[in-house]
């Protein structure tokens, strides 16, 4: 019976979409799409890894994990898994610097049973010792092993943020350090929950085909949390590096991971944001072969799998083509991600590593110097005009964008609906102004993960050219450009290069 009802409902999916957050109770975001057979939840706790106490880095994540992956006072964890199973539904928490968000989607046939479990997870966690030991052991395994030994390209990106935000609450990864996670106790988790999971610190997002009165019910339920004093954390003010600062992580590998970047004074909703979104899309659109960096390094030279840039955080970007949601931050980096560069012959790994780094750097220098010609602005504008439609592909994503709007203080119509009007308004001049205010090539944090770190350091300091060879015949224009790239200056001093063995990476806080 259930299946028949579901089939009928799905057949109707995708009709009228009427988003409204007006009229919803305070601290609530309602995205009504009455024809959707799904109901999406996006409950935002205004606390994240920036609220981790010193020495207890990882606590916000462990707290959220215990709630999403542990027992409640009503049900054992096993019983929760068992009840969710026939619905093919679940809920999970994501924790970033500023936000903890509990998300889930369920078919409307199963709303009541599902919501009871979701609600209990947030409001009446059991804080079971066994569950705590399980989720802590999983996090510790990630910190001790998987993070450092599985995906160097993701590790180099996390290290870039760690370098750039030293001395601020943004420095440590949400997963914490090996030693800090080891020290976290169940009491720490209970204390974190009591301190941050407050009715006046929670925003409730509900979207899709929910019944009348449901949003009000969810809000009233969440109001069952106690009120309290909300901890405020000052927005980080990361310092611009003075010149070039390099971290080289020593690891046994045949390929190098490379990340580089610097802070930018830009968040969603700022006057320059649309212009910079366009510039970044042109320069390094995520996972897109149109991106300029991709064209220069991969398409023409075949050096690696892809080369991208970012103006907003995009954790675990190797896993998806879709933009992340619920990673809103008050501070951002401009980030260049060069995917692993492999050696192709004896002893050419470091030459190729530095060649790719120089190629990206030189393109950034050209961009800041010359800006974007009007026809390129038009090209990028048309692309984003069409492409941005895909950002809110599901009700769950559209709702999450609304929650992020609340973070950034963006009122109606919200970010997604304002992209096209923003693109219409910008001009080549406003684009140039935004480049001038946000980008520069002289000050840079740089991370390499590679083998034989001392040799790479020596090569960097020598300033010697790092040419590459090709398997294919290349046109003379490209070879001429290569000569410039190979000797593009990276002005770095010996005292600004740090070498770290892989076993020390994220082992403990400083």
């Amino acid at each position, binding site marked *: 019976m259930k*299946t028949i009802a*579901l*089939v009928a409902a*799905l*057949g109707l*999916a*995708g*009709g009228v979409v009427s988003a409204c957050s007006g009229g919803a109770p305070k601290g609530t975001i309602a995205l009504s799409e009455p024809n959707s057979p799904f109901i999406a939840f996006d409950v935002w706790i205004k606390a994240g890894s920036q609220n981790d106490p010193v020495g207890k880095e990882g606590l916000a994540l462990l707290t959220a994990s215990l709630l999403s992956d542990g027992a409640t006072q009503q049900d054992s964890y*096993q019983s929760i*898994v*068992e009840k969710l*199973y*026939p*619905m*093919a*539904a679940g809920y999970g928490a994501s924790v970033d610097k500023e936000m903890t968000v509990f998300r889930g989607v369920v*078919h409307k046939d*199963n709303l009541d049973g599902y919501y009871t479990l979701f609600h209990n997870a947030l409001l009446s966690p059991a804080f079971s010792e*066994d569950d705590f*030991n*399980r989720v802590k*052991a*999983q996090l510790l395994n990630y910190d*001790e*092993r998987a993070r*450092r*030994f*599985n*995906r*160097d390209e993701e590790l180099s990106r996390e290290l870039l943020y760690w370098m750039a935000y030293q001395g601020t609450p943004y420095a440590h990864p949400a997963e914490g350090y090996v030693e800090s996670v080891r020290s976290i106790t169940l009491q720490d988790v209970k204390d974190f929950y009591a301190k941050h999971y407050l009715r006046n610190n929670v925003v409730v997002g509900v979207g899709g085909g929910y019944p009348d009165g449901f949003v009000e019910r969810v809000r009233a339920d969440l109001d069952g949390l106690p009120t309290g004093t909300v901890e405020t954390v000052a927005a980080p003010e990361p310092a611009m590096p003075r010149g070039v600062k390099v971290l080289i992580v020593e690891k*046994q*590998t*045949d*390929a190098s991971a490379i990340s580089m970047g610097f802070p930018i004074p830009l968040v969603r909703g700022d006057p320059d944001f649309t212009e910079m979104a366009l510039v970044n899309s042109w320069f390094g659109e995520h996972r897109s*072969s*149109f991106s300029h960096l991709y064209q220069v390094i*991969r*398409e023409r*030279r*075949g*050096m*690696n*799998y892809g080369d991208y840039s970012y103006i907003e955080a995009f954790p675990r970007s190797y896993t998806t*083509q879709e933009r992340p949601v619920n990673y809103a931050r008050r501070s951002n980096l401009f980030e260049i991600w060069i995917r*692993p560069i*492999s050696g*192709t012959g004896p002893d050419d790994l470091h030459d190729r590593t530095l060649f790719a780094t120089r190629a990206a750097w030189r393109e950034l220098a050209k961009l800041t110097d010359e800006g974007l010609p009007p026809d390129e602005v038009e*090209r990028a504008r048309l692309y*984003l005009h*069409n*492409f941005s*439609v*895909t950002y809110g*592909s*599901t*009700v769950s994503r559209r709702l999450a964008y609304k929650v992020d709007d609340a973070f950034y203080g963006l009122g109606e119509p919200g970010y997604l609906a304002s992209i096209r009007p923003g693109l219409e308004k910008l001009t080549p001049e406003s684009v140039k102004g935004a480049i001038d205010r946000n980008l520069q090539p002289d000050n840079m944090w740089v991370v390499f993960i590679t083998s034989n770190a001392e040799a790479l350091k020596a090569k960097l300091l020598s300033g010697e050219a790092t040419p590459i060879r*090709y*398997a*294919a*015949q290349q046109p003379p224009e490209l070879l001429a450009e290569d000569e410039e790239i190979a000797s593009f200056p990276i002005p770095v001093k010996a005292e600004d290069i740090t070498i770290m063995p892989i076993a020390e990476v994220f082992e403990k806080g400083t």
Partner: protein
Amino acid sequence: MRPLQGLVLLGALAGIVAAAPGHATAQEPAGIFPFEYRRLDLDNGLRAYLIRAGAPGQIAYLSVVRTGARDEVEPGRTGYAHFFEHMMFRGTKKYPNYDGVTEKLGAFRNANTSNDRTAYYLVAGTEYLEQVMDLESDRFMNLDYSEEGFRTEAGAILGEYQQGAYSSYSILDRKVRETAFLKHTYRHSTIGLEADVRAMPEGYEYSRSFFHRFYRPENVVLVIAGDMDLDHTEALVHQYYDGWEPGYQAPAIQAEPEQTAKRTATVEYSGRTLPIVTYNWKAPAWSGTDKNAVAIEVLGRVAFGPNSDVYRKLVIQERRLQGLGAGFGLDRDPSVVSLNAMVSDPADVDAVESELEAAVALARDSLVDAKLLANTKSAMKYGFLMRLETAQNVAFALIQPIVNTGGIEAVNDYYRTLDAITAEDIRDAARTVLDDRGLTKVTLVQAERGS
């Protein structure tokens, strides 16, 4: 050739209507698959499905080539199905700059390759449907790339190889494949062997032959899902694809000889890892109608999934495993189903193995609880239906039946077969598949001097 006018909206068309080549067939929701669709069978062998689904104003355009790493039969040529996927973005005489055209459309597009298929997709506004079809049909028929472009792209493949090459799971996967398969091409992974990947710049001529043998209409199924006029779209399919010359040459894939004794192997990992134990049993090909094949997929969930007794005991209650995963999905050819366990304490590996083997024996000897079976069927159905929110996801959800059978009708077959599966069927499936003689057990451990 003549399209059927309009759709049959109601009626007794339960399930599949077999279509003769050259006919369009209207289908209405008569099984689990909830959308109206139309099937076209062109004279040249191309099959296309037009499906109305998803949000207004958007279409997802999916071309499934039923060629993957499985088809790489020649020595030294592993990884070419995937390499060729990259070359498909390198343009034609008509559209030398594929990227430039799709950029203007703002299209979300990419492709991916696995054992059994290569899938190309593009999501764009409905207003661009004809442009998309022109572009896509053109590259499938008239791909044209230079040797220089080919050599350059080989470098990108090496970079892609390196991204995951050092993960413990990649290393384990390689060992499982080379131990379990002696003849069949499932012996190598989709990305290919490192030596073959490094030799790719020299393979231009071979890559051309790959295109001519496999990129043919009889070997491709097109899915267009989204908001569109079906008659208009059907006319476009004929306009753009009727001229595609058939000529598919099936590769001579060696059948895997029957395994008659248990195989074991251990592989050392130079980074840091907890031990991972994997059990891999030889299993039959995927089928939507064979009760035993469907029962095997259910078996993986009931015997080893998060609601199984062994999962509860070892992962949740005793926490002796970091995780337990059951990969019981079947493939186009007979393959393996797998159980993977990451062991929390290296000293506990032997004891954990005894527990897992006891659970395997239990699956062979006892009947699954009725409630767990009912819940599993529900989870599988809802799991399928919950994926169908967007046109792109509708298209993606159909890749597996297309790859395995050449059509989407197998979706309804599969869930009909699933409905009828009993506890006895699952026990019988366990007896046939969880047999020590077909077992390959591989363990990954950290090397003594891990870095």
